[in-house]
């Protein structure tokens, strides 16, 4: 069994019908089922200790919902997440509850993830003190230790979040996660808001920490070159499901799904000067009303008859390389 096993994770958001709708429903005058958004239809992945899983997708593809479910912020509708064999969703044993704390999250907007009235010291120590991972007498040393790990001086502990730049706040956010002695870090667009020169510093920091603490990462980004740089495995998501997954080197060398290919040619690049070819048309459809068949078929230049009628299932093309596309496999599923 792998270090991290994610099996059939699903999340459906639905609104409770209002009073009038429920009344009409009870009288049989209106269908009382409310619209449901299938934010994540199906997400399975596994990861070995010390590996980085990169997750790529556009807005509405469900990548942040996956992150929040892994971090225990959002409760999945179905599915299991096993860390070291412990079910961190059910959390039905003391070991599983401890394992759930081994997963920590680093957000895109560090400022929004910190209490502006707390000093850095309190921001970093609140969780480990509450969960008993450190004793109050160890707090000072722990803060100094984690700040040093992110290349900041222990003196900053007595300041407030607003006194730091965006890059420094992101380091503090990482230090806070490290204070829990995590095994798995979930990074949701953690470098997206940073300036180019600061982004390189934080990416290097993630790689250093991985070596130093043996950390495993789920790294979510819309930036292909960042994901390619950091990840061992990569999954591409579209409208709530994985459309292609493979080891990073393999995926970037041989992308198979038309959506993956489109992303790769359209990601801004220093090499694409004065590009002329027409881009992928259309937008990501609403998850409230996904298209028939393959969700990508309305935007796909290679769409066939079968793509409009049936939904392709993720199928292995080669060892470790899976794609959900009728160009490569005939396997289908009911969405």
């Amino acid at each position: 069994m792998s270090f991290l096993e994610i099996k059939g994770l699903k999340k459906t958001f639905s609104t409770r019908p209002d009073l009038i709708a429920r009344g009409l429903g009870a009288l049989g005058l209106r269908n009382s089922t409310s619209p449901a958004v299938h934010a994540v239809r199906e997400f399975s992945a596994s990861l070995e200790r010390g590996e980085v899983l990169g997750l790529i997708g556009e807005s509405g593809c469900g990548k942040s919902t996956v992150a929040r479910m892994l971090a225990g912020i959002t409760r999945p509708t179905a599915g299991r997440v096993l860390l070291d064999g412990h079910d961190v969703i059910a959390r039905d044993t003391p070991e599983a509850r401890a394992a759930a704390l081994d997963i920590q999250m680093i957000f895109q907007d560090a400022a929004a993830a910190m209490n502006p009235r707390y000093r850095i010291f309190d921001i970093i120590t609140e969780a480990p003190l509450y969960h008993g991972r450190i004793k109050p007498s160890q707090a000072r040393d722990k803060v100094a230790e984690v700040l040093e790990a992110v290349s900041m001086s222990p003196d900053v502990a007595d300041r407030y979040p607003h006194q730091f730049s965006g890059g420094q706040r992101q380091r503090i956010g990482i230090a806070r996660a490290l204070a829990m002695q995590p095994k798995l870090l979930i990074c949701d667009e953690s470098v997206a808001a940073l300036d180019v020169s600061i982004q390189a510093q934080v990416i290097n920091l993630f790689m250093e920490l991985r070596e130093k603490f043996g950390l495993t990462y789920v790294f979510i980004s819309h930036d292909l070159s960042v994901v390619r740089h950091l990840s061992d495995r990569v999954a591409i998501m579209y409208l709530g499901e994985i459309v292609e997954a493979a080891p990073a080197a393999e995926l970037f060398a041989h992308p198979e799904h038309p959506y993956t290919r489109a992303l790769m040619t359209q990601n801004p690049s220093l090499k694409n000067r004065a590009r002329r070819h027409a881009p992928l048309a259309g937008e990501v459809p609403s998850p409230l009303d996904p298209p028939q068949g393959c969700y990508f078929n309305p935007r796909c230049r290679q769409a066939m008859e079968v793509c409009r009628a049936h939904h392709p299932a993720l199928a292995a093309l080669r060892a470790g390389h899976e794609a959900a596309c009728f160009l490569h496999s005939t396997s289908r599923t009911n969405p």
Partner: protein
Amino acid sequence: MTRELLEISGLKTHFFTRGGVARAVDGLDLQVGRGQIVALVGESGSGKTVAGFSILGLVSAPGRITEGRILLNGQDLVGKSDAEMARIRGDRIAMIFQDPMMTLNPVLRIDDQMIETIRIHDRKVSKVEARRRALEALREVGIPAPEARLRNYPHELSGGMRQRVAIAIALLNKPDLIIADEPTTALDVTIQAQILYLIRKLCEEHGTGFIWITHDLGVAAEIANRIAVMYAGRIVEEGPTDAVLDRPHHPYTEGLIRSLPEGQPRGAALFQIPGMTPSLLNLPEGCPFRPRCHRASEACRAMPPERVSAETRFRCFHPANAAEGALHELS
């Protein structure tokens, strides 16, 4: 010599704050030709947005333009009255913001906003004619079912569609110059690619000059004819896109390019520019990049003059990628 569409020389926009004078733009020289796209690249605090606002006459207290000229078609915009600038904005110069809701009024329908933009600059245009032009503009930016979209409110459109509407509004009066501040930063990759493609096409067809403000060198590489790199209120390097990206002279430009993961071996440590962008209130003397520069020397305690190579101009005493003989002081 033919006049450029836009010629900015020695522009200084300073903010007189209680903490001191913040020199957000401190001696900016920039030219934009007709149909040309110039990318103004810089990190937060480099002054790129204030530069854009200065051209539009949108700098408000405690900031003001203290020096310099902004010539649009040979006419100086510095010193124009608010009323005169209001006539120029939206007509000769248009702006596209990162967030299209900065442009769009949430309580007005798209057609009302577009008709207003046309008629406020030319009362003689009838409402029917203005509506026809609005429809044509929406069609031009590739909005599907433009007739129906005209009757929508902004919240009924997706982010990508809103940005297209904002671009359509910018185009309405066929401006000479469009200033776009990070117009695709909030958009998804595939939508961004659509907008980049669209802008390139429109620029060529209409001969509109474009200043594209961005922090993203990849976007600049794709869209721009020329790239100007800003640091601490000045352009530190400027030239044709290929020259700036392939043969950068300024160590800051070089560092920015090298710090991108693109083109690096997977998992290798990225090149880091140490430190962070300096506070504008407390700039180091001489070259502002000196404390972060690996090539800095004693000479850098003085402000480097602008120098030119065969292709680019830059401000540095110790340029990279340059045979010393090929460089000249700019008098």
